[in-house]
């Protein structure tokens, strides 16, 4: 192996280790030696581990998390499966709309969606006060109702996973079975189900993992309905009294354990059901125009209206209302919340400064996106074009933070970066914005690496070898060959990282410096103090701004690349 490649490889491996693996390791170490990070070494007391079963709060959190995630995964997979099947088989106008909504829901921060639902279904919410639908409140604020709400926002994970698999027509196998005398049910049981199963299991697991790590829903619910989940109890073990750092670590450990189990299930299913059905005779599913296309269009549109329209629409509507429960009539309409947003310092602890928060969040997300893209570029390069011994480690580190929830990473960061001995080194990062940047990088790395791996996958290594023989160093090879080819996906990866980290409520809540305003915290704080107008106006402006920035940067990037091409760069 080339030594300069080894240097790059060692460098990024170490960075990923420190940014991603070390915090997770800290959580695991805390499980064995609680108190280690607070300057006292105690051997693991099994009592602490068993405490989760003794203390009703923690037991209930575990139970709530597991039931919510199981329910959501199941309902979400059913919704995703039905939609994907319809989408793959039929050709109808609303299909495009469905894809778009799925992506919007996938990217939208879950706390915003959940807040929209709380505003809609709460006892002084839209459904109750305007539409007189009193049953909505009692339906939503109970475990099954929450599963329903979560499924409506998490189904896209299952939808996309199943869609990818149902694009191919596998009727030939079924026909062969039928020719050999199998009944339709036998065909479904022995051919269609085993072939489709992996994508369903993958979809189910993805929804399960995303739901169990979710922080947005319990955070949005906190003021109206008591539904402690593992993620929220981790947060409250750190930010509420009495403080239990050790226990937060233990709860985080349980969360990681459940996630690991889910991952194992996914791996086993994928391995067990390896059929290479995509052979030379594979044909893409031909979409047929259904006889009653209007029926499909109508029902899909209604569904999308419920899943996206209700939460987003409610938030948008509330932002223009003087009194959230006052109804839509001219006297109740106002732009005051928006004015307040831009009025600068409110002098009110309930309303964090919005412009400052937006500035901080944008800068932190931009820094996180840039660094994660750079690191991701080197990681993807190492994984694709080298034989480095560090590759398995890089693989592992670059995927972990996809599965590990922000709250767990957050507690890990507190363990690591709140050590007293770091102070003289200037590395006491807890309570400083730099930790938010690092956390942002950790969160964005999996996306940055995956997108770039995809782009590099199409590239032949021969060009690089040829360049190396001509004497080009690893940096030149990256700059002159890989970068120009992969730049479009690099840009998209950067923008995607930016878009996700700018709204990360979990990490912002866990790692916030004192008196430091951040966009998701502005929204959350105003929501907590029932300043719904301010919260929703901030939501609307934030989403608009971020979408606008992404569109502009993308357009600018395209123009720039074209200019580079014209000028023979």
């Amino acid at each position, binding site marked *: *192996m080339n*030594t300069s490649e*080894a*240097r*790059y*490889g*060692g*460098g990024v*491996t*170490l*960075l990923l280790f420190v940014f991603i693996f070390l915090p997770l390791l800290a959580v695991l170490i805390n499980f064995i030696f609680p108190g280690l990070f*607070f300057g006292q070494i105690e051997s693991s007391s099994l009592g602490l581990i068993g405490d989760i079963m003794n203390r*009703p*709060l923690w037991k*209930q*959190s575990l139970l709530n998390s597991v039931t919510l995630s199981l329910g959501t995964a199941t309902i979400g997979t059913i919704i995703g499966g039905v939609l994907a099947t319809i989408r793959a088989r039929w050709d109808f106008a609303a299909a495009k709309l469905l894809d778009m909504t799925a992506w919007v829901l996938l990217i939208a921060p879950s706390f915003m969606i959940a807040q929209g639902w709380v505003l809609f279904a709460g*006892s002084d919410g839209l459904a109750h006060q305007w539409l007189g639908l009193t049953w909505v409140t009692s339906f939503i604020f109970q475990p099954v109702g929450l599963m329903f709400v979560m499924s409506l926002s998490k189904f896209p994970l299952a939808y996309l996973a199943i869609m990818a698999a149902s694009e191919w027509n596998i009727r030939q196998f079924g026909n062969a079975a039928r020719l050999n005398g199998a009944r339709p049910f036998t065909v479904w049981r022995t051919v269609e189900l085993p072939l489709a199963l992996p994508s369903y299991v993958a979809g189910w697991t993805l929804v399960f993992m995303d739901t169990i790590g979710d922080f947005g829903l319990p955070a949005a619910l*906190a*003021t109206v309905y*008591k539904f402690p989940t593992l993620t929220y109890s981790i947060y*409250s073990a*750190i*930010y*509420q*009294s*009495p*403080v239990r*750092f050790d226990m937060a670590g233990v709860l985080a450990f349980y969360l990681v354990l459940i996630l690991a189990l889910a991952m194992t299930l996914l791996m086993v299913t994928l391995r067990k059901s390896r059929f290479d059905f995509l052979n030379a005779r594979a044909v893409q599913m031909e979409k047929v125009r259904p006889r009653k296309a209007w029926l499909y269009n109508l029902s899909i549109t209604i569904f999308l209206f419920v899943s996206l329209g209700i939460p987003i629409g409610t938030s948008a509507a509330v932002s223009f209302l003087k009194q959230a429960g006052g109804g839509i009539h001219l006297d109740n309409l106002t732009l005051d919340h928006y004015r307040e947003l831009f009025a600068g*310092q409110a002098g*009110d*602890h309930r309303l*964090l*400064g919005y412009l*400052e928060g937006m500035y901080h969040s944008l*800068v*932190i997300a931009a*820094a996180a996106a840039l*660094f994660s893209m750079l690191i991701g570029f080197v990681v993807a390069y190492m994984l694709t074009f080298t034989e480095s011994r560090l590759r398995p480690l890089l693989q592992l580190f670059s995927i972990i933070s996809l599965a590990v929830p922000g709250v767990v990473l957050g507690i890990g960061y507190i363990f690591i970066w*709140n*050590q*007293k001995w770091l*102070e003289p080194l*200037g*590395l*006491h*990062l*807890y*309570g*400083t*914005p*730099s930790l938010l*940047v*690092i956390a942002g990088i950790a969160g964005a790395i999996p996306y940055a690496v995956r997108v770039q791996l995809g782009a590099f996958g199409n590239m032949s290594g021969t060009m690089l070898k040829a360049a190396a023989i001509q004497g080009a160093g690893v940096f030149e090879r990256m700059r002159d060959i890989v970068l120009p080819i992969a730049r479009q996906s690099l840009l998209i990866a950067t923008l995607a990282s930016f878009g996700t980290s700018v709204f990360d409520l979990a990490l912002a809540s866990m790692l916030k*410096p*004192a*008196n*430091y*305003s951040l966009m998701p915290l502005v929204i959350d704080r105003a929501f907590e*103090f*029932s300043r719904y107008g301010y919260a929703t106006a901030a939501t609307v402006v934030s989403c608009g701004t971020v979408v606008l920035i992404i569109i502009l940067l993308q357009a600018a990037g395209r123009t720039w690349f074209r200019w580079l091409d014209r000028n023979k760069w």
Partner: protein
Amino acid sequence: MNKKTGFKHGIFIALTALMWLLSACAQTDGQPTVRSGETTGPTASGSGGAAGQPDITLTNGNPEDTGETIYLYGNDFVDYIAPKFMEETGFKLEAVHYGGGEALAKIEAEQGNPQWDVLMMDGHGSMRNLGDRDFLMTDWEPDNLGNLSENGKSHVPEDFAYFPVGIHAAGVIAYNTTLVTSEKAPTTWEQFFAYDGPVGHADPAVAAPAYPLVSAFFEQWGVEAAEQTYEQRFKKGLHVYPKNGPVGKALLSGEIEVAALQEHNAYELKLAGEPIEVIWPREGAPGSLRVVAISKHTKNPAAAKAFVEYMLKPETQQMLTNLDSTDSFFTPLVEGVSARSEREPNGAFMLPSAKWASEHEVEIKTWFADQNVR
């Protein structure tokens, strides 16, 4: 170069990159990693600005004055107190708003590296607890301590770990008049706990005055009896909201009919013309003693002490009771300061001793959080 040196180089570059990254990040965001005198940010309830640089004479005259900005963690008055204090004394102070539970948690988290200098919050029990665990500066007697009323003096601890500022009702009985008639409304705490209908109050894990509320009942009735009473109450319908704001909202929306509501919130609703009536029970309202304390590791002892002196001045207390905000509802503990006239003038308080409230804090809060999810 062999592989071993290659690896060493790799590590070296990675470490350098990391250092660079961290320092770069800290700079990007306009806030240095280690706090210096001046901070950015309009959320601060006032830093720099009004006061500018500290008075030269003050800095020169006092060896304890390091010139650094001090941080106040607090729940009430945070929006007003910083600019007023800076204007009067020239010291720089930044007030950070936390709920009581949040402030305690933050202080706990910063154990290794305290970022706060002064803490002002409801609940002498929690403060006693911090004092016993060596978090607070002790044995310094403020000059203005003599300004305290007799009642105020009775709450000053022997080790001077904290100083009482005011007392208010952590909970009075508030009921929604559209749902409850005045005959049916509970007038004692016993009736409140026996009330046939949904009632609510704030969460002691989050809201500062909620622990004084709960601990007063626990002390009054004894832990075991109080636990039983609460268990019964949970069965009959007891809604616990994180803070008093949401409790008031739930009372208005009819989700609960009666609440043990902090007095500011109760009077705020009543004065705003909402259908809320307030009852100050004859046996007393659970008292929330607001105290101020200095961190043992304060970066600027002169400024922190000046803040305590400032809080014990009659002018300051009068300014606070005259505020056009519901924060002004409290009984000032400095002699000769008048309280808001809208309050119950002779309301009695139930107040457990600091020692008792401190010793039972973790036990009661933990028990309560566990009951709350059943």
